């Protein structure tokens, strides 16, 4: 317990000194493991991990889902998604902000990153909301908050990383993210409604769209919707078109998604040869950086386990006969606290090796905990002072003060806390769908 605590503190210090997370966790894990076992044992463990991780079939889901998101992005889908949402919601008060939320949700369904969702949607939605005289606080906040949906609505890079770190089924995690993700959209719409009912000036209504135009707008997105249903339906094992039955492993779903997105982008003539190469290159680099942090986190995890931290923590909890729910509440508070300063992926990597074994041994469902952790991470993306999504918005929009964005985000943040409470209180919201999986 003592060694592991020192190790954790050492990782924190190294990481704050700006040493890459992969190297900080790897180094501390290696040295710690060395002290628990032997020099040779530690080096061998690290070398084995490097060899095995890079050839782990399950890990191939990482580059393929990133590839899918980038190809969809190249396909120019964000504009169409926004047009459709606008066609249906634009005439309401605050309708453009609501359309932004729904479009973000739609984009999240094909993209696994919150930052990418926020960055992409801000380019499309921000000019429109400006045109209709929306308050900067509402328009930026709706994009920043809507963007967080990227990591919960499947596919999700963060859920993949969680699944790989904890050996939890990625397919189940994805399916479990659907209902909480929908709830997210619903609650954010309420937050917009709340904002405009308090201050109608903030979000004036746009023009009403005729049903004919609404249907025309739908044409622009059907391919992407189909892709989403193919990927998620295949993952769920629910696509049964006799004689063809489609049931995908996560890797296969990701491969289908990537190839499908590639074909969609090609058919829209939005993809050049150099554009394709650019996407592949970016994916390879992102995948390599994610693999590095995964290997680092695994090395650290091995050390934490061999140092007996999980047993020690569990022992402490049972010795003081604390209720598991009190522990869970404490963990969530720690997450919300850490979320104020840490960026989402770093937070996940640093905390999951420590908390997960305890949570599992206390009898909580690993899939449910994954969803809860991701929802908490979403909250951290819009929590001051370090809300990454807010910074992304600031980077794209520029002339809006950060404080204004954070102020506008407040109702969304409150909506998130409600959603978190609901998912923690009613685990079935996350767990019902995966429990029905074939």
């Amino acid at each position, binding site marked *: 317990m003592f060694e592991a605590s020192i190790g954790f503190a050492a990782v924190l210090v190294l*990481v*704050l*000194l*700006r*040493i*890459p*997370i*992969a*190297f900080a966790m*790897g*180094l501390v894990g*290696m040295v710690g493991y060395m002290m628990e076992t032997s020099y040779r044992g530690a*080096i*061998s463990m*690290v*070398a*084995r991990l*490097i*060899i095995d991780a*890079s*050839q*782990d*079939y399950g*890990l*191939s889901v990482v*580059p*393929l889902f990133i*590839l899918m998101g980038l190809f969809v992005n190249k396909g120019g889908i964000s504009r169409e998604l926004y047009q459709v949402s606008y066609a249906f919601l634009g005439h309401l008060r605050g309708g453009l902000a609501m359309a932004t939320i729904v479009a973000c949700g739609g984009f999240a369904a094909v993209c696994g990153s919150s930052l990418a969702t926020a960055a992409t949607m801000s380019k499309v939605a921000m000019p429109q909301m400006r045109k209709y005289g929306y308050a900067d606080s509402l328009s930026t906040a709706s994009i920043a908050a809507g963007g967080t949906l990227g990591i919960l609505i499947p596919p999700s890079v963060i859920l993949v990383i969680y699944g790989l770190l904890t050996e939890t089924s990625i397919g189940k995690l994805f399916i479990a993210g659907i209902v909480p993700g929908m709830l997210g959209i619903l609650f954010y719409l309420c937050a917009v409604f709340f904002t405009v009912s308090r201050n109608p000036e903030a979000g004036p209504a746009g023009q009403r769209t005729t049903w004919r135009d609404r249907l025309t707008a739908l044409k622009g997105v059907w391919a992407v919707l189909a892709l989403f249903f193919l990927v998620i339906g295949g993952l769920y094992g629910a696509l049964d078109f006799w004689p*063809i*039955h*489609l049931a*995908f492993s996560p*890797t*296969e779903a*990701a*491969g*289908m998604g*990537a*190839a*499908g997105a590639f074909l969609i982008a090609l058919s829209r003539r939005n993809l050049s040869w150099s554009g*394709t*190469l650019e996407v*592949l*290159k970016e*994916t*390879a*680099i992102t*995948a*390599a*950086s*994610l*693999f*590095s*942090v995964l290997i680092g986190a695994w090395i650290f995890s091995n050390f934490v386990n061999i140092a007996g931290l999980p047993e020690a923590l569990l022992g402490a909890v049972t010795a003081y006969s604390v209720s598991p729910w009190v522990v869970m509440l404490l963990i969530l508070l720690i997450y919300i606290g850490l979320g104020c*300063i*840490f*960026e989402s*992926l*770093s937070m996940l990597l640093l905390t999951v090796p420590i908390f997960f074994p305890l949570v599992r041994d206390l009898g909580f469902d690993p899939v449910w905990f994954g969803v809860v952790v991701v929802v908490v991470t979403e909250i951290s993306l819009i929590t001051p002072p*370090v809300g990454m999504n807010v910074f992304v918005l600031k980077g794209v929009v520029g002339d809006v003060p950060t404080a204004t964005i954070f102020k506008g985000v407040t109702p969304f943040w409150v909506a998130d806390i409600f959603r978190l409470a609901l998912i923690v209180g009613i685990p079935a919201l996350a767990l019902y769908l995966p429990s029905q999986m074939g």
Partner: protein
Amino acid sequence: MSNLANFARRVAQLPIFLASAALFVLMIMTFADVILRSAFNAPIEAATELTRMLMAITVFAVLPVLSVREGHIVVDLLDPLFHGSLLNRIRDAVISIACGAMLILPAGRVLVLAERARSYGDLTEYLNIPQFYIGWFIAIMTYMTALVLLLRGVIALFAPKLLENYDV
């Protein structure tokens, strides 16, 4: 010296291209495998082992490039505290050198493990490809990454101008 930097940039394109190609093949193969299996009940039997190899190639080919670009995921929370370019430079250089040095031992061990696989004659299941090819590749690229990080640190200390505007 700038010729040297240009040359380095050219050379760096090679592994990126290799990784991109591997990734593209991986995507097409997975797609084809699912289609063939679902529609014609004829899966690509070697798909799993090819996936493993293509992944290792993708990740390890770009690892040195990622490292020289400072593409690793870092926490930049305390950046405002490190004022002044000299302090920043020294910190980056020390980190780079430390990270590079850290990789040398595991890289050596990877090579030993690959050699062991070779002496056992380990082959992949369907295609009978010797396992040590990938082991060697991983070891060499890990060594390359270590070298690149060490070089980067030294250059950052003594010839920082070379690193300016460096983008592969």
